[in-house]
């Protein structure tokens, strides 16, 4: 084993100048690729932060088709979103996920007790899936409750920010009542009546205690948001199939947005996304990212070609050594193995050196580079570092294969 290790190290020490060239090629390539990656991350962050309101998120809000009529009131004529629609949306190319908001199609009302104050109001309730409101659920307890649809203190609910604002700016101001601080709302208990409102009352109407899990900016309805499972159960209890108020379609990438929008429109539904300026910014973002991807590809190709040429030279300059090794009884497999190990070690060391070089250089870059409105983030994440190290190790190995195979087939055993 030690003997084999010695021969591997001997191979590593061979053709030092060419090894140095390969080392430099990989080092520079890795440094450039990491720099481009940092550039890409910062550019995308800059776009997202500066044009947050103008850029369309990778989400599309799908609403039922609009009812058009000559009269003020009309039967629902637009296309309704149901579970079948949700499945169709999920099957559109480029769709990552679909979160639907299910309306309770029964009358409902809420009664809030606060010391001597009692406030009763009709309201609508909507069920939201866990994935859509996960970020609004602050405690693990509430996250678990949302998944199961129930909590020991009652049905967990999220209060839309729009509803709180309406109360604070309308009802509270008009009646000299205290305003609600959204962050302090969690934990408030109240009573909700399902199947009963000031307009109508169903036979199976029932009251249920509820507990506020927090507030949400994501669903702007003047009603309460309850777990999707609870909404489905209540609808079922009253013999209702349920009707989706809207569905949030998340795209895998911005580039799919236009295609998805087109298909949803063709299905007869209304959609909401950012408009006008956003398309320009998305195009700019896409162009810059494509350019960066092209540069990274170009650097990778150049690194592969350079390393391949270096490996051909390295193998050819050492062919006498390999021929002697063959004459002394080394198998092709062993010779090939030592060459591959040599390039793998070189690749790994040069990649690691590239990562270290960029890591050290970034502090100087931060000091030297100052762009108004742009906060540079020069962190290299672990996953990207691993990818760079793996690629940096494999590229020289793969690049040296043609030279090794050519040597084996045509040159090695000619004395």
């Amino acid at each position, binding site marked *: 084993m*030690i*003997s084999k290790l010695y021969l591997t190290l001997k191979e590593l020490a061979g053709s030092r100048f060419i090894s140095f060239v390969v080392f430099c090629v990989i080092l520079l390539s890795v440094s450039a690729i990491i720099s481009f990656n940092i550039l890409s991350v910062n550019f995308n962050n800059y776009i997202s932060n500066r044009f947050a309101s103008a850029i369309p998120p990778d989400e599309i809000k799908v609403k039922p088709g609009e009812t058009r009529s000559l009269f003020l009131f009309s039967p629902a004529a637009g296309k309704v979103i149901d579970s079948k629609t949700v499945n169709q949306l999920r099957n559109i190319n480029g769709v990552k996920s679909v979160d639907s908001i299910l309306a309770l199609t029964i009358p409902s009302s809420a009664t809030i007790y606060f010391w001597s104050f009692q406030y009763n109001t009709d309201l609508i309730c909507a069920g939201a899936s866990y994935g859509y409101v996960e970020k609004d659920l602050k405690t693990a307890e509430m996250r678990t409750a949302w998944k199961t649809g129930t909590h020991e203190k009652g049905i967990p609910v999220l209060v839309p920010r729009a509803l709180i604002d309406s109360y604070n700016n309308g009802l509270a101001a008009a009646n000299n009542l205290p305003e609600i601080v959204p962050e302090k709302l969690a934990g408030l208990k109240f009573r909700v009546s399902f199947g009963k409102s000031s307009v109508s009352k169903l036979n199976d109407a029932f009251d249920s205690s509820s507990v506020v899990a927090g507030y949400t900016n994501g669903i702007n309805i003047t009603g309460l948001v309850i777990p999707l499972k609870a909404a489905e159960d209540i609808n079922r209890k009253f013999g209702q199939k349920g009707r989706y108020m809207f569905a949030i379609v998340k795209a895998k990438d911005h580039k799919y947005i236009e295609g998805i929008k087109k298909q949803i429109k063709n299905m007869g539904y209304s959609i909401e996304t950012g408009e006008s300026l956003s398309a320009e910014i998305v195009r700019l973002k896409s162009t810059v990212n494509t350019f960066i991807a092209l540069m990274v590809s170009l650097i990778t190709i150049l690194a592969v070609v350079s390393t391949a040429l270096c490996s051909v030279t390295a193998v050819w300059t050492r062919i006498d050594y390999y021929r*002697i090794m063959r*004459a002394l009884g080394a198998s*092709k497999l*062993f010779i090939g193995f030592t060459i591959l190990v040599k390039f793998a070690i070189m690749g790994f060391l040069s990649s690691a050196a590239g990562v270290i070089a960029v890591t050290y250089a970034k502090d100087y870059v931060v000091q030297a580079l100052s762009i108004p409105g742009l906060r540079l983030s020069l962190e290299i994440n672990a996953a990207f570092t691993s990818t760079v190290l793996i690629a940096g190790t494999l590229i020289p190995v793969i690049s040296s294969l043609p030279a090794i195979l050519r040597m084996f087939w045509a040159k090695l055993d000619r004395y």
Partner: protein
Amino acid sequence: MGRSRKTPVGVEKKTIMSLNGIHKHFNIAGNRVTVIDNLSLELKEGEIVAITGKSGCGKSTLLNIITGITRPDDGHIVLKDKRIRYWSDIFMSRLRNREIGQIFQTFRLLEDDTVITNLMMPARIKGRAGRAVREYALEILGRTGMSEFVNTRTGLLSGGQKQRVAISRAIVNKPSLILADEPDANLDAATSQEIFKLLEMLRDEGKSILIVTHKEYMLKNADRTYTMENGILRQLK
């Protein structure tokens, strides 16, 4: 000159290698050229067999076939009761490493490495290069008169010294067969005789030696001598 002194008179020598009906041709410029034609040869323990012939008559091809570098079109070789399997590079490499020691006219030494490093290479390839092997290598260098050059780079040695190192390297793994391809080609007459004396010493230790040579001295002192012409082997002595 002594003849196989280790084997008592009257005792049949063991066959180390036998070549049976070896045939090899090459296609050169569209023409089929037969290089070796139905060649059979036996090599016994502790004997020197010399082969001579014009350049390009197939002598080196024969050595390459024995070492497994070139595959014959027909026929087979048995080395120490094992039939050579040409399809397995690992098998052939192991055979070259353990059973065959090779000596080349161009020495084929690692010129940037020391004498002892060169000597240890076959052992390192074998995977056994411990202290015992190193001591054995030093002992061989003593026998070949190269003790004082143990840590000298082989690139600095003379032709005769290099060939002594090459011979020492050929026997470090204790092979039963030594193939020498014109070991004296680049050496003067005196050095050539010294090299042959070393080979005789190895023969006396029981090694079988197959030499390809043009030198009259070696042909005269070999146990058997053959000439190769148009791929056919003819015994001279």
